[in-house]
């Protein structure tokens, strides 16, 4: 059976992605901090879908151990999905460097560190698919969310470059830009229901993107158009908006 590695497997979105692949008979390697928390998820996936699941300890911030982590995996997965991320409260991130740094590590440098290693491996094998969950917040910085947004923007640029590099090696790189999703990360925010996806929809969308080898997906189709509008507003006007 094909194998998927999920990095940052404890989030609501990761659970949905794991279920979506398990439903389609993929074995799973779930990587997260304090991974024993995910024993219930492991039994759930094995019983519901009859797939194999292993749990592996992984800390996105501990970049010095990323190579060891990857090379000690029992199987190097056919598909690696980088789901972890961290959204700070914008105001506290402005005032406390620790918050900003955590945001950059979780959403950008930690992801780059592990994906650099996976990309080497896939390039050599000339096969594999890498999926990165970024965010529409990375498409244009807004005052309400730009520290998170800028880290996600860096990740978007990274994935785009990686896709370009790995194209000759037939390794697919997929950028996922979910709009609002009902998850623990957004549970304090008031989200417009019509624009908000369920984690399950993200799970299905990611699986479909891998199957169809899409480069960039937005989960809910209208986000592509919303973001296009947001991006064409001239900076002279945009800087005056309260967004």
């Amino acid at each position, binding site marked *: 059976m094909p194998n998927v590695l999920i990095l940052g497997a*404890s989030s*609501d979105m990761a*659970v949905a992605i794991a279920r979506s692949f398990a439903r389609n008979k993929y074995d799973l390697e779930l990587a997260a901090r304090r991974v024993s*928390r995910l024993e*219930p*998820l492991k*039994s*759930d996936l094995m*019983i*519901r879908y009859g797939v194999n699941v292993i749990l592996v300890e992984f800390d996105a911030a501990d970049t010095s151990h990323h190579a060891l982590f990857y090379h000690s995996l029992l199987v190097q997965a056919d598909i690696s999905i980088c789901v972890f991320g961290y959204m700070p409260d914008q105001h506290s991130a402005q005032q406390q460097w620790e918050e900003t740094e955590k945001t950059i590590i979780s959403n950008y440098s930690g992801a780059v560190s592990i994906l650099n290693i996976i990309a080497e491996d896939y390039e050599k094998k000339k096969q594999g698919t890498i999926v990165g969950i970024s965010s529409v917040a990375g498409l244009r910085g807004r005052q309400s969310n730009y520290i998170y947004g800028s880290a996600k923007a860096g990740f978007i640029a990274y994935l785009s470059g990686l896709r370009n590099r790995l194209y000759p090696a037939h390794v697919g790189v997929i950028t996922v830009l979910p709009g609002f999703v009902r998850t*623990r990360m957004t*549970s*304090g*925010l*008031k989200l417009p229901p019509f624009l908000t996806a369920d984690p399950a929809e993200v799970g299905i969308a990611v699986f479909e993107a891998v199957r169809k080898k899409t480069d960039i997906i937005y989960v809910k189709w209208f986000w592509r158009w919303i973001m296009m509008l947001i991006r064409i507003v001239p900076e002279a006007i945009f800087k005056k908006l309260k967004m």
Partner: protein
Amino acid sequence: MNKKIANWGNYPVAVCDEIDFSLEEQLLPLIQGSGPAIARGNGRCYGDASLSETTYSTLKYDKVLAFDTQNGLLTCQAGITLDQVLEIIVPMGWFLPVTPGTKFITLGGAVASDVHGKNHHVDGAFSSHIADIDILVADGRVINCSPEFNIDLFEATCGGMGLTGLILRVSFRLKKIETAYIRQKQVKAANLEEIISLFEQYRHYTYSVAWIDCLKKGKDFGRSILILGEHATVNELSNKRQSTPLLLPDKKQITFPVNLPSFILNMYTVRAFNFLYYHKNIKREINRVVSYEPFFYPLDAILHWNKGYGKNGFVQYQFVIPLESRKGLIEILTRISDRGMGSFLAVLKVFGKQQSMISFPMEGYTLALDFPVRNGLFSFLDELDRIVLNYGGRIYLSKDARMNPEIFWNSYGNLDRFMETIRKYNPDYKFRSFLSDRLLLTKN
């Protein structure tokens, strides 16, 4: 996050702070960080049972923990819905030991309401099939309880409407099946006398329930269709189905698009519906083999059918009265037909014996009716409450949105023991709902 929530009847609507959780480590901060709260699953109780200042949404706490496929023992976190459970167990040759008329309830809800099904007279309520429960109580401990350990907690949790704590995990015993099909028999009854004797005649059937026309008077008073079922064996299936006897039914669902204006439901439309429903069965008796889906969950095929009652919502009124009080049943049905307060869904069933602390079922006739919320309804239901009380019956809390505390305290037995257990595990009423406040179970 504060949001407007209503349960299935769309009445009442309340603003609640909804908090969800998916990992064990979130539980302690959850209960320590919030005010009075009640667990809420998929919101399929009808009234205010799972509404409170704060609701703990269990829907993300939905993992399957263990499945002993040899002995049919399943252990899950409480937020899993029965429709997900069915998808796991049916292909392995197992079925729910007891299921209510919708599969969109959570396992935790099934325990807190101690749900019953069409097989109550044979298999009892859901609590009869529970091996054990883990429950988070107000002081932060997780306690395992069962019919053998921490018996008081177990008894007060089954049917206890979430007032003992947050149900986390449930292990329960499944029923072995050969096929995903039901051998169904429908028998028409011309009146109430006949339907009651048919229930008696067919009481050996595992599943039985009757649809009843509440608007008919005179000689047709109480005309009904008795619906009976047994799990079909492989031999009873058509050749085509025999090769895959445990195949899950297709998901054919339509969504009720909008709230209907409430005037659409009136005595005349209900009469027309009842006429068609009764006469669609031309023969007195019909026998066929059907998938479990239409047999157990006919309304689940229409998602959001509750919108058919308009935006004012509806209440479902379900009571049970003892077998010897058949006069009470007649009296209530007479009041309903006299007032023309018809209901599309009027369901009659005979419960078997049940010994429990606080659960709704008891041996007798149970009738469930839907009424759109409108002027005069609540005073009319107050009248019905009196009759139920006079005949020694009671009202189902999971469907209730309006009963007076006096009726409740006089109709449920064992309330002293129930209150004692609540005070032991939930001394400051950390777990409380608008229902428990209304019924003065948790009013300080």
